[in-house]
Structures are given as structure tokens and as C-alpha cells.
């Protein structure tokens, strides 16, 4: 079980968060979740994650900043953006980190299997 993919979910909406955790755990991923970026950064300090699924609109440090900081601390962590912001578009800094539209998940995601597929793709990259 050492090879299990580790995922960190950062989302301030607890229901969205818990649902995603449940679904991904059912898929045998190791999933942690936090409600804001500050807590998320602490987790990054102490653990290594393969993937972070990040909401953009967060209290305090926003999702974008979180990704940039996480990347500095843990360059191997890959990101999936999960946002409900209608007018969100990738900024240059995020693009520079290799994040593409493919990793942009707009809420509501009707089928969480799309997360699973994307995670597997990112891991196999």
C-alpha cells in the first residue's frame, strides 16, 4: 500500500469537500482535506502530496497563491483546480506551472469519475 496516490483537497465548502474525499477514498486514494489555504500549507510542509485539488475562492490566502506557494515547497505536487467562479481563467503564473485548461474543473462536476481519470493521467505523466 506504499504506492498509494496522496491527494490533498482544499475547499471551504465542507459538503463538497466531504463528498470528494469519500469518492476518492472509494477509489483507493489517500485523501486529506482542509478548509483553507493556510491549513493546506501546513499539511504540505509535513507531508508530500502527488495531487492537490484546490478551490480558488478561499478565505484568506486564495487558491492561486496556495498553488504557487505549494509549488515552491513541493515542486512535484500536481494541481487540479476545482472552482465555482464563473469568470475564472488561468493566469500566467498558473500556466507557467504547467496547469492547463484540462486541469480546470468547473463546479458542479456531474460525475466525479472525471476527477479520477484526470488524477490517473497526471500521475502517469
Amino acid at each position: 500500500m506504499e504506492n498509494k496516490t496522496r491527494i490533498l483537497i482544499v475547499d471551504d465548502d465542507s459538503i463538497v469537500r466531504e463528498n470528494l474525499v469519500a469518492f476518492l477514498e472509494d477509489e483507493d486514494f489517500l485523501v486529506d482535506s482542509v478548509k483553507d489555504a493556510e491549513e493546506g500549507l501546513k499539511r504540505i510542509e509535513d507531508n508530500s502530496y502527488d495531487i492537490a485539488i484546490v478551490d480558488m475562492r478561499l478565505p484568506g490566502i486564495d487558491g492561486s497563491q496556495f498553488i504557487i506557494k505549494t509549488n515552491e515547497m513541493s515542486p512535484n505536487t500536481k494541481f487540479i483546480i476545482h472552482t465555482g467562479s464563473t469568470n475564472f481563467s488561468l493566469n500566467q503564473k498558473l500556466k507557467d506551472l504547467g496547469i492547463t485548461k484540462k486541469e480546470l474543473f468547473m463546479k458542479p462536476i456531474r460525475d466525479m469519475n472525471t476527477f479520477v481519470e484526470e488524477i490517473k493521467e497526471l500521475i502517469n505523466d
Partner: protein
Amino acid sequence: MNFLMDNKNNILSSSGNFSKGLSPLDFVVFDISEFNQKNEKNYSLEIKGKKYKVDVKKIKTSEELYHINISSEQKDFYKNIFKESILAIATHRMIFDEKGQPVDYIFTDINEEFKNLTGLNSDVLGKTVLETLPETEKFWIKKYGEIVKTGKSERFQNYSVAFDKWFDVFVFKNQKDFFTTVFRDITEEKKTRDDLAYTKDFLDNIISSMPSMLIGIDKDYKINEWNVKASEITGIPEEKALGKDLRDIIESHIIQNALTSCDKENSVVKMDRVKGLINGRNDLILEVLIYKLDENIKDGYVLILSDISERIHLQEMMIQNEKMISVGGLAAGMAHEINNPISGILQGVQNIKRRLSPDFAKNIAAAERFDIDLIKLNDFLDDRKIDLFLDGIEESGFRAANIISNMLQFSGKSAGERKQIILKELIERVYELASNEFDLSKKVDFKKIQVDMSKVEEDIMLHCVDTEIEQVLLNLVINAAHAVFSHRKDDGRINFITKRKDDKIFIEVEDNGPGIDETLKTRIFEPFFTTKEAGEGTGLGLSVSYFIIKEHHGGDIYVSTGEMEGTRFTIILPGGRKNGK
């Protein structure tokens, strides 16, 4: 008085007035031979204490017949008239060349007014006009020459360079080669008249060039002023309108009420946004201004009708746009807030369904721990219709998500990417999609509708988010098909028309359905506004189209009545380029 007399003092005939007791017999006392001997033309006689001039002229030598002309004070009277006339009078003798053409004329007599008027004096007598006034135009000489030749007197007005004046001239022939001119200076008069004519022309011009209809009527509604715009809008030319009763041309009760209040309040009556005023032009929205004329000058009214349809249209578009932007902002904001809860619903349902599944390994393991038979549990869920309710939650969630995803397009930006596409291909794709869509729907049979794409230009390129424009056109076609089908089952028609004008691309979708009620035209783009039965449509299609065209593409979309009397949607998009250019 004139009389003919023979050499024996017999009066043969006479004419003229024998005034003041003077009779031809009085003359007989004078022997004719006496006049004859002196061989002079003029004699002066005194009869009964009065002086007379006597002209004697031998008419027929053989018979010694004399024509005697006696003139008395009367001659002086005429002389005085000549002298003191307030009109300039001159007598002249015409000079003809060998060919008989008039070439010049001599001044033989001039009166005082002539001197005043021309600044010439008696020095001119005996001189010719070209000697005196070399700049005299040929016109004068030619004209006088004709009069002398024909003997027909004439009155005319003409300008003289020599005097820099306009003259009103009366010319008559006196005797062979001699003629008299009577004239006056009309320079001022003519200037006043010209000024007046100019003023009138100017006013006429102002009235006829007015961008509004200007109509003048008298107390009895008879039209006495009808400008170019009035003809243009009503189609009634001025000559037919003048004298006509205004109430035959425009809606009488509106105008009657207006005139009554115009009379009562003695002020200008203004009516804004008047519809259906002019018979046969219900499309016009007019601003009406009515005022009473000064009774002392002319009794009547003036009506100024300005076509403000375009202005109202623009205003409505602006109001509409602002309304849509605020509604759109609200909707987009709402959409954002609703996305999270919908995520919760949809993902929650997905988790519940999976975690109840009897095939899922983790469920089986957990069920064993709690000693639960998963198959039985599923039978239970089925029996209690919990599956059904979960499906219901999921479906409702999807529906809400659909509405929200439509509302998301109300935001200013488009998520899609712009591409250069060939408009005709896009329209063909829309047609394809529409036909398929209707294959599934029983209500509307797309195959029965005649779709005309002959007016879709081949070579229009469009830089756009193609999926969005596709969505807009598909929406319009579906709406059109519904409209057409609700109205007529057999001869439904939908026309696609594209054209390029300047830098703009026009796409029109036109149907022969029932059309859109005038009062609804301003509302159809509102989010959630629908005329369809509840459940048949969300009322978001046109609002989404509106935002896609206006906000995402910087274009314009509006509805009008098309050529087929149904509905026509016009989309205007910026940036037309020819294929391959």
C-alpha cells in the same frame, strides 16, 4: 381741335372739343390764305382774348385743302404735364443704319424728373445716347427700334448699366422715327421685392427642408401648408394635400382633442410618442407639436410631427441593454453562489448511489461488518422508492446545473476560444442539429418546414466562439420552428439570410409564424421570460443568445417583423472579412 378747310374758308370736317364757346365759325373770319402766305408752321392767334396756337398744314396742293390744328391752354396743360410729371419723360429720334437697323437715338426733349433721375441736363438735347452714355446696352436701342418700327407701345422693366438702376419704362411711338419714353426708378422697389422673394424662398426652404412634417391648417382643418417631409411620410403630394381636410389624413379624434386644448390654454400642445396618428403609417412613433397662429395675421394652426421611431428604438435598446446587464450581473452572481450547493447535491447523490451499490467491493466489506444483506437492502430501497427519489434529486440537480450553466453566460466574458470560421458552414451545422433535434420531438416536424438558405453568402468568415454562435442560431431556429408550427402545419418557412455591410456581418433568421406581439418585443430577451407552457422552456434561450451576441461578441441582436410577416431576428456581428482575404 382739328378741322379740314379749303382755300375758300369752307370747313369740310372737324374733330375735337369746341370748348368755351369757341366754334369753327370764329376761325372763318381769318382768311386761310393769310396763313398760307406766311408759309410758317405755327401761328399764334388771339380770339376772344385767349391765345391759341394754330398749325396749318396743306394736305392736297391741287385742291388747296388745309388741315388746321388749333391748340390752346390744353397744349400748355400737356406741356405742363410733361414738364412737371413725377415720371421721367424724354422724347427721342431713332437713328437707323443703311440696313434699317436701329443704331442709336437722339434726345429731343427731356423733362425735369428725367434730369433728376438721370443726372443729365438739357445739354444732352440733340446728342445721341451713345455719345452721352457710351455704356448704354444694345438692348435699349434694339427695343426702342422695334417700337418705332412696329408702332406698338410697350411697358417693360430692365436694368441699365449706365445708371446702375432698374427702370420701369413705358415707350410709345409719336411719329416717324420719334418715340417717347416715360419711366421711373424702381431700383429700391425691386430690391424690396427681391428681398421679399428671397425671404419667402428662404422660409419655404426652411419649411421644406425640415426633417419634421410641417402642416398648416385653417380653422376648418383645411390644409394650407404641407412640406416635403409631410409628402414623404404620408405619400400625399403637396398639390393634393392643399385644401384637403386634415382629418381625412390623420386620426381625427387625437387631433381634435389637441386643437381644443390648444385653444383653451392658448399654448403649445406637445404630445410625445404618438402612435397610429397617420392613417396607413402605424409603424411610426411621432412627437407632435401644435400651436396656434396669431389670429390677427392668420387664423389657424401649425402642426409639427417628428418621426421619433428611431430614437425610441435606440432608447429602448439602451434601456434593454442596461436592464440585461444588471439582470445578467445578478444572475451570474447568483449562479456562482449556487454552484457550490449544486455540487454538494450532485456529488452527494453520486456518493450515495455508489455506496449503496451491492457490487462495490468496499460496500460489501462494510456490509459484512454490520451483518447487512446488500441485495436485500437494495430490494428495500427499491420497494420504498428511495432509488427513485435519489434519481429525482440527481435529475433536479442536473436541471438546476443546466440553468446555472446558461446563466453563467450572462457574465461579460466568454469562456470559449475565438476562431475564424466560415459562416455558411456553421449555419449548415445548425440546420443539421435542428433537424436531428426535431426528429426526437413529436411536437414539431422539422421536415415539413421549408428552410431557405439560398441567401446565405458563401464566403463570409467570422471570428467568433463558434460553439456560442451555433448555440444562438440553434436557439433561434428552434424558436422559429415552434412558432411556425404553432401557426401553420403545412407551409411553414424559415429563411436564413447573411450579408456583409461595411465592417459588419448580418445574420437573419426569419419565419412565417404568428410574429411577436409588439408589447412583448421588449421583454423577450429577459431571463426566464417565456411564452411557452410551464416546463416547456426555461426562458433562458434568448437571454443567453443576447449575452453571447452583445457581451461576448460585441454585436447586436434585435427582433422585428420580417418580410414574411412573421418574426425576424437580426444578429449583427463586427468584423466581416471575405474568405481567403
